[in-house]
């Protein structure tokens, strides 16, 4: 009897641990840690702005496989945590802000705001390794990019 009682208690304890672990993991999964980068793409070798830093080789190679520009420079980088069912804003320049809202499931809503005016909205599943890129033309055959990626380890 003492043996069965022992195992019964063990089983209950393990069941409780399992439920708590799944609840903790489930609760943590809904919070997102995202990074947004404002990048300038050009065929020039250097940026006219000193504060622009060339992107790392891996990022440049990945961008070159999709876009036509040779060189890419980081203008701004912001990292934010998006709370569950909440929003957070990434102010990348004086006029450009990206607002991201965590939705049900692994989906997020990304909203581009220019000079305070919403310009575009996307709803997409975003996982680690995925890049969501907003881009547009800029002066002198250059382009701007906003790269949003998930930093959470899932």
């Amino acid at each position, binding site marked *: 009897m003492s*043996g069965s009682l022992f*195992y*019964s208690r*063990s*089983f209950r*304890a*393990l*069941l409780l*641990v*399992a*439920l708590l*672990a*799944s609840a903790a*993991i*489930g609760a943590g*999964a809904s919070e997102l840690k995202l990074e947004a980068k*404002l990048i*300038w793409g050009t065929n020039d070798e250097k940026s006219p702005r000193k504060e622009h830093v060339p992107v790392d080789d891996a990022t440049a190679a*990945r961008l070159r*496989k*999709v876009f036509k520009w040779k060189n890419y420079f980081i*203008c701004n980088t912001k990292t934010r945590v998006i709370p569950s069912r909440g929003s957070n804003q990434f102010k*990348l*320049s*004086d*006029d*450009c802000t990206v607002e991201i809202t965590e939705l049900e499931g*692994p989906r997020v809503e990304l*909203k*581009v705001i*220019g*000079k305070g*005016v*919403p*310009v*575009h*909205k*996307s*709803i*997409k*599943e975003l*996982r680690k*390794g*995925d*890049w*969501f*890129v*907003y*881009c*547009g*033309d*800029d*002066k002198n055959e250059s382009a*701007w990019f*906003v790269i949003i990626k998930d930093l959470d380890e*899932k």
Partner: protein
Amino acid sequence: MNQEFELKLQAWVDGELPKREVSRLATEIERNPDAQALLAELKMTRGFLAGNEPEVVLPESREFYWSKIQREIERLERTPVEEPSIPWYLAVRRLLAPLSGLALVAFLSVLSINLFYQPDDPTRQLVETENLSEHVGSISYRSQSENMFVVYLYAKESESGDAEVDPEGAPVNDLFLQ
């Protein structure tokens, strides 16, 4: 003749009866033949025991005798008790409950960290896009090889063919890089 009276008789035979009760008990015995018979029987039994009870004499001292017993008890306690062998199916059954619990923990953990996630699931590629400004158009495409979803924003052409401008005069698609 009740039990209390019998016990008094036995106490009298053993010499343990208080003196003040002896005379009264003797009077009662004289009047009661059963009591006389019991008294005779008790005296006879006491005589047998006193004369024939064997007296065991220890061959060694009392302390040494009991120390031997204590040492033997301690020796037996130190001897490992052989546990009866358990059949294999009972041994497996004993592990079943904890293993089931561990399996449940592993299953829930796997479920929670999305190990069932299928990278090629077509439903996860669905994207909803919406232009919120009438002056800005968008084209979206996905690079499967680079795992990249791109939304290209551009200023819609005005009727004159020029790019739309914001009230401050800058082209709409130049708003994002300052």
